[in-house]
């Protein structure tokens, strides 16, 4: 018997690639069962037509996360109510690549797509951190001398550092905080513009997250955390 909390903790590490939030927070995990090391998790998405590439990533990531728990011997992920459910469930079940899962419909794996949204997610987390550090009165240019060692111990800083490490950027204490998604330091005079664009990504992602939650709530008759009806 494996603790349910351990299964949920593993799934909470799996994120929607674009929304950058855990599947467990988004309400995407609809059922979770375990029997002598064999785990079945059921996933659901806001619409029947959610992007199949993102769906495939979440299903494979969920499988990998659950398999990493000691004692878990077998994992079956079931994506429900999606136009590509059959392809994804059987493809991931058989450990097939994305290209093989969608034969003829894809010309590459999903590495570049994942990297693109990882970069966006990093910039959003950086913008949130910078807003926190600047507080009410600060000027963005003041951030040019900020080093990793100067960061406060806050959830925003932790989330920033987590993504930064995942992208493989420099993690030494003297490394500058405000960098582009490929790790280049942003000059002081350009920080304002840099953060302004990151803000646009944040608005976009937050808007989409709100929509996804609303659509999921309407689709499955569950409460919408924002209390708004679509």
């Amino acid at each position, binding site marked *: 018997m494996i603790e349910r909390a351990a299964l949920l903790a593993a799934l909470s590490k799996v994120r929607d690639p674009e929304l950058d939030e855990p599947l467990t927070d988004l309400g995407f995990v609809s059922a979770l069962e375990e029997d002598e090391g064999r785990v079945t998790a059921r996933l659901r998405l806001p619409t029947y*037509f959610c*992007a*199949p*590439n993102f769906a495939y990533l979440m299903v494979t990531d969920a499988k990998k996360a659950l398999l990493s728990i000691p004692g878990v011997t077998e994992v079956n992920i079931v994506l429900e109510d999606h136009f590509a459910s059959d392809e994804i469930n059987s493809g991931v079940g058989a450990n097939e690549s*994305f*290209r093989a899962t*969608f034969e003829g*419909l*894809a*010309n*590459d*794996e*999903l590495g*570049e*797509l994942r990297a*693109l949204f990882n*970069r*966006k997610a990093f*910039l959003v987390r950086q913008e949130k951190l910078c807003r926190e550090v600047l507080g009410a009165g600060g000027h963005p240019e003041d951030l040019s001398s900020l080093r990793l060692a100067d960061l406060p111990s806050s959830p925003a800083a932790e989330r920033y550092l987590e993504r930064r490490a995942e992208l493989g950027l420099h993690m030494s204490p003297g490394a500058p905080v405000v960098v*582009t*998604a490929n790790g280049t330091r*942003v000059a002081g005079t*350009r920080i304002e*513009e*840099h953060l*302004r*664009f*990151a*803000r*646009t*990504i944040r*608005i*976009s992602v*937050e*808007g*989409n997250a*709100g*929509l996804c939650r609303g659509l999921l709530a309407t689709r499955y008759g569950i409460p919408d955390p924002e209390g*708004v*009806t*679509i």
Partner: protein
Amino acid sequence: MHDLFEIGYVDVGIFQPTYLSDFYVEGFNTTERDAVLKEKHPDKFILNTSFDPRYEQQGLEEFEEKVRRWNPKGVKLYTAEWKGDSKGWKLTDEWALKHLQKCLDLGVTNIHIHKGPTIWPLNKDAFDVSDVDDVATTFTDLKFIVEHVGLPRLEDFCWIAVQEPNVFGGLAVAMPFIYTRPRYFANLIGELLYWAGEDRILFSSDYALWQPKWLVEMFVDFQIPEDMQSELGELTPNIKRKILGVNAARLYDIPIPEGMDVADGTTPEITDKPPVPVGT
């Protein structure tokens, strides 16, 4: 006519033909069908047309024929339209470029683009809009109006709009957020004003999915919530005039009623490109 002109505050309506012939036997709303109403009320409507580059040479000739017959100033393109085995096309396809060149030659200068999800290849972002960037650079004398302001990838649209002065944002489908998610709508408008500027945003009702009456009323009464104004500023009556009509009137040479015109030129000048091309 009642919904638009009697109660909906509309002076002139712009038809955006959408064929979707694989889904609708007679087409969704074709140029031919829209033209029937236009002929009954010539002063009330502007008729655009459409093309599908996958008909290649024959399509190009038919498109030219349509332009000669109806003299449209714009086209509505739907790149995600299915056709037989094809699940969509790109503006940079060989025959799409030939059609855009034809638009330029014939004076069809307003290119409205509805970017639906990219169906192939599945490994790409489903809402990839990079082809808009390419053709806007190639055809600087054409205006590209990206419908739905690129949603759900607002940032990609803003990134293109700030670099390409001939790219506009159409608010179709985005408008109703004014009711369901007013704070999101405020953010959306704030971002568009910052990157594209008040001269490059166009109201759209997407009638008959939504009625212009309540959209116009709510937009006229709308203001950025007070706690967001320090970041986003205010929506002035002049900005609202531009979005609701003046910007479209300029694109389509529609006479602007006395006292309604607004001076041009508050588009922000961004001399320094933002340093974060995330997609590259």
